[in-house]
């Protein structure tokens, strides 16, 4: 029989750097989970993504056991990395702060496909390009689709 779920906690934590302080501590501790066990596992599993902000969904069960799924960094984080800037624009439609190529948009879209509500790479690319636009980042050239 499937174990009964107590709660699902959605956090974003830096790879290799989970520690028992807020928000990990209070979010898991109150549910009776052994926080130290989560930190050790999360850090061991993310050694190749040290320091990157990673979304993690932790399912806590009624018996205080848990499991978790680590996702790739959010599209906006990947956009900043691709464009090599640290922040977007305060006036995204007037003041552009960077340019992203459609190849870069495609790479991010393909990476984030499983997490986006998109059925095709094209629709995922439109979502990523939309996020970039809201950050004041232009896409370079014509879209490779209609």
């Amino acid at each position, binding site marked *: 029989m499937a174990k009964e779920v107590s709660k699902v*906690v*959605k*956090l*974003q*934590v*830096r790879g*290799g*750097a989970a*520690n*028992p*302080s*807020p*928000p*990990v*501590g*209070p*979010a*898991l*501790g*109150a*549910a*009776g*989970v*052994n*926080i*130290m*066990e989560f*930190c*050790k596992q999360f*850090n*061991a*599993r993310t*050694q190749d993504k*040290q320091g990157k*902000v990673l*979304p993690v969904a932790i399912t806590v069960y009624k018996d*205080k056991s848990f499991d978790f799924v680590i996702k790739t960094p*959010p*599209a*906006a*984080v990947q*956009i*900043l990395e691709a464009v090599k800037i*640290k*922040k*977007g*624009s*305060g*006036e*995204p*439609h007037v003041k552009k*702060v960077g340019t992203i190529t459609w190849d870069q948009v495609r790479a991010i879209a393909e990476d984030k496909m499983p997490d986006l509500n998109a059925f095709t790479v094209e629709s995922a690319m439109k*979502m990523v390009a*939309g*996020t970039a636009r*809201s*950050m*004041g980042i232009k896409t370079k050239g014509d879209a490779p689709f209609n």
Partner: protein
Amino acid sequence: MSQVYIEYDFKISPLQPGTEILIAELGAAGFESFVENEDGVQAYIQKEEWREDILSDIFILESDEFEITYGQRDIAQVNWNSEWEKNFDPIVVSDQCAVRAPFHKEYNVPYEIVIEPKMSFGTGHHETTYMILKFLLETDLKDQTVLDMGCGTSVLAILASMRGATTIDAIDIDEWCVENSKENVARNNCSYINIALGDASTISEVTKYDTIIANINRNILLNDMHVYANAMKVNASLFLSGFYLEDLPLITECCNNLNLEFVENKEKNNWVAAHFIKKE
């Protein structure tokens, strides 16, 4: 022990892609971690890392595309793990060593260790701690000089002491672990254990060890291995853990380059503990 975190609670409309962009910008500004919720996001940073104008670089706050409001508060570090700690099961290793809390009944085994972890790592429940305890039970430590790097609760240093080691250094980078180690060492009457706060640079350049134990993680082990190798006598043992089986080749390669020869490893649920010996 005065660690304080600052929590910012942001309400965002529209939620997407606002939340995502905000997290990306806050992450680049140095915020450590985030919780997504129904109407926005909570962001956390250590007070020591925080500065007055930390939000001045967060451009989405000025964007007319999103409406964002926020509040901020301090959160003092407390023992968030207390719920689990008040009711865990004791651990027995190889019928010889028991690790239990003060509230458990006594065990009739040669090595009985009493630990109150207070949010430090090392209760024997984790595979890595369990396997190193096992290694220490199989190793002759009589009159040895031992280093426990990343000691957590100091459970490994305490077993080394009970197994006859006479000089033991236990080091951890976390203040909570140092405080907790002092309590556990006193609780188990281990007078030969010296506890220090710090990273690998804290390791003495004078003392040479017979045995070094490090249950940390792959990247830190790879980064600090040369320091360990340098602090070992010829034929000294190095016990490493805190990584998965797929990372063992990397660890072994790093050790080989430092004249540390692989002896054997244990494996439990894909976690590894490995034994190396320093060659001439």
